[in-house]
C-alpha cells in the first residue's frame, strides 16, 4: 500500500532523509526506531505533506497514487493519518467543530454523504469509548491546555474518527504513563484490520509490547540501516544504539 523508494528530503538545504526505502503492505505493523535526530519525525512529516521539507529525490506511492503530488489534506483524505509527536494547541477552534469539518471533508472526497449532527455525535460517542477520552476535553478548544497524555489520547481519538488506511504514530508513547500507554495501544489495536497498516515511530521497546510489530527498522542519519522482526527491538532495548552507530559509521569510513 505504501512504497517508498530512495527518498531524499532536506530542510533549507540540510539533507535529513538520505535515501529511504520502505514497503508497507495492508495488515502490517512496522516499527521505526532510532536515536534522537535520526530523521524519524522528518519521515513522518514528509509522508504527511509538510511543506517546509523539500523532497529532492525518490518516489512515494500510496495505494497506487503518487503521494508526493498530493496536498496534505488530500493525503489525509486518501487515508494517511499522522499522529503528531507534538500535537499543536489551537485556541479558539472547537475540537468538535474541527472534527466534524474534517470528517465531512474526508467523506466528501470519498464521495460519501456528509454526516448530520446526530450521526456525527453518535460516531463521536462510540469512538470516545474506544480511547477512553473524556467528553470534557472535546468541548474545549483543540488541544488547548491539554496535558501531554491528553494530547496523545486526542490524536488516537482523531485517528479513530477518521479511520485511516495508514496510520503513522510519531512517538505517541512518549510522555504517557503505563495506563495511558495501554489505553492508547488498545485503541490502536482495535482499529487494526487486514486492510490497514500502521507505522509506529518510537525509541522505546515498551510500546511494542502492546502494539506488536511485524517489522522493526532502525533509522540512523536519514537511512534505514537495519531491518528485522520484533526481536530486533528487544536487542536494541538491551544493547542501545551504539553498536548500530558503530556498524554504520565504521562502514562508511
Amino acid at each position, binding site marked *: 500500500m505504501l512504497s517508498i523508494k530512495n527518498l531524499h528530503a532536506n530542510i533549507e538545504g540540510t539533507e535529513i532523509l538520505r535515501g529511504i526505502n520502505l514497503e508497507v503492505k495492508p495488515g502490517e505493523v512496522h516499527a521505526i526506531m532510532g536515536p534522537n535526530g535520526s530523521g524519524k519525525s522528518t519521515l513522518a512529516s514528509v509522508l504527511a505533506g509538510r511543506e517546509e521539507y523539500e523532497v529532492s529525490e525518490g518516489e512515494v506511492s500510496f495505494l497506487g497514487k503518487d503521494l508526493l503530488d498530493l496536498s496534505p*489534506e488530500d493525503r489525509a483524505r486518501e487515508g494517511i493519518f499522522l499522529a503528531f509527536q507534538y500535537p499543536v494547541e489551537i485556541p*479558539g*477552534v472547537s475540537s468538535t467543530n*474541527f472534527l466534524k*469539518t474534517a470528517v465531512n*471533508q*474526508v467523506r466528501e472526497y470519498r464521495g460519501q454523504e456528509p454526516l448530520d449532527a446526530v450521526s456525527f455525535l453518535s460516531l463521536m460517542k462510540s469512538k470516545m469509548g474506544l480511547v477512553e477520552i473524556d467528553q470534557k476535553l472535546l468541548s474545549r478548544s483543540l488541544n488547548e491546555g491539554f496535558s501531554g497524555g491528553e494530547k496523545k489520547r486526542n490524536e488516537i481519538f482523531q485517528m479513530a474518527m*477518521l479511520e485511516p488506511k495508514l496510520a503513522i504514530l510519531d512517538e505517541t508513547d512518549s510522555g504517557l504513563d503505563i495506563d495511558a500507554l495501554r489505553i492508547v495501544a488498545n485503541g490502536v489495536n482495535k482499529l487494526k484490520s487486514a486492510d490497514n497498516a500502521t507505522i509506529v515511530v518510537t525509541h522505546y521497546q515498551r510500546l511494542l509490547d502492546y502494539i506488536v510489530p511485524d517489522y522493526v527498522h532502525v533509522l540512523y542519519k536519514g537511512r534505514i540501516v537495519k531491518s528485522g522482526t520484533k526481536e530486533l527491538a528487544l536487542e536494541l532495548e538491551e544493547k542501545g544504539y551504539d553498536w548500530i552507530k558503530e556498524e554504520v559509521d565504521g562502514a562508511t569510513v
Partner: protein
Amino acid sequence: MELTQQAQTAEFFKRLNPNKLAQNRLDIFNQAKEALIKNGLPKLKEEEYKFTAITKTLDKAKVSLLPAEKFDISASLTRKEVIADLDADIIAFNNGVYDANLSSYSPSLNVNVEDGSTETASFKKHFGSYAKADKDAFIALNTVYAKEVVHIHLAKKEVLTKPVIFRYYQSNNQETSYPRVLITSEEFAEGAFIEQIISEEGSGYFINGLTEIYCAENTHLQYHKVQKQSKEAIEVNTLEVFQEKSSTFSSYLLSLQGGMLRNNLNITLNGSGGEANMNGLYLLNGQSHVDNHTSVDHREPHCNSNELYKGVLDDSSRGVFNGKIYVRRIAQKTNAFQQNNNILLSEDATINTKPQLEIWADDVKCSHGCTTGQLDEEALFYLQARGVGKVSARAMLLEAFAADVIANVSIDSLRNYMIDNIKERLGAHY
C-alpha cells in the same frame, strides 16, 4: 479650493443661520467655528493623523464639506444589512439628518430631535460637554454643521427593553453628512445601541458623525458599530463617553469595508468603580484603510479598562491602531489592559500600531501588548493533516483569532450577524 482652506473661510459658514440657536448652543457653535478657523483640518503628517491623510483623501475625492441634502432613500437601501431577528427601536438618518419616516421606535423611548432653538435641561448640561471642538477638527466640523441633534435620554432605573439602532443612510454625492447624537442617562439605567452606515456599492461620501454618551452612576450601556460601507466611503467619527461612578460601558466595533475610516473613541472614567470595555475587530481587504484611535482617561481610583483590538489585513489594506491610556495621579488601584493583535495575510497589507501609556499613579496594574504576524503555519498543517482543506483550515484559524473580540456581544441576533459577516469575510463557510 483646498479643503483646509475651504474649512477656514467665512464663505464656508455662509449657509448657516445660527441666529436662532439658544444661547448655550450658540456659544458651543461659536467655539467650534473659531477652533476650525484657527486650526483648519489636519495637515499632512500631523501627529494624530500621521498614518491617515484624511484631508488629502477628502481633497482627492473632491468632497464638499457642505452638509448634504436629504435624498430619496430607495426601498432596497432600507433593506440593506438588516440584522435578522433583531427587534430594535430604529432611528434613521438621511445623509446625517434625522428621518422621521424611516424611524420607528417605542413611544416609551425618550427621543428628542433638538434643532437648537430651545434646550431641555439635560441637553444643555451634556451637549458639547465631552466632545471638545479644540481637541479635533472633526469634532469642530460636526459641531458647526450638524443641523439637529438626536437626543436619547434614559431615566433613572430605566432599562431599555430593546436595543436602539441608528441607521445612517448615505447617498452618492461626494458631500458630507454630520449625524449628531447625544445619549444621556440617570442612575441605574441600562441600554444597548447599535450603529450602521448604509450605502450602495460605489457611493462616494464623507460622513463625520459624533456621538456623546453620558453614563450616570451605576448605569450599564453598550455601543456597537458595524462598518460595512462602500469601498469609496470616507468617514471620521467620534464616540465620546463620560462615565460616572460604578458605571459600565462597553463598545464593540466591527470594521469590514470602507475607503478611509477613522474611528475616535474617547472614554473618561470620572468616578471610582467604573469599567470601560473597548473591543474592535477590523477584517480588511482591497484598499480599505481603517484607523482606530482610542483613549481612556482614568481620572478616579478603582476603575478597570479592558481593551482588545484585533485585525486581519489582506490585499493592500491598511490598519492603524493607537491606544492611549492615561492614569491620573489620584487614580490608584487602576487596572488597565490593552491588547492589539494583527495578522497580515498579504505582503502589501500594513499595520501601524502604537500603545501610548501615561501613568502618574503608582499603585496600578497596567499591561499592554501588540503583536503582528502571519497565520500560524504549524496549526495550519495540523488541520490539513486531518483532511481539512487549506481554505477551510485558514478560515478556521482566522475565525478563531477573531472570535473573542465579539464573543461578549450580548444581543444574540447582532452577535450572529457579526459572526456571519466575519465568516463571510474570512471565507469560513466550511
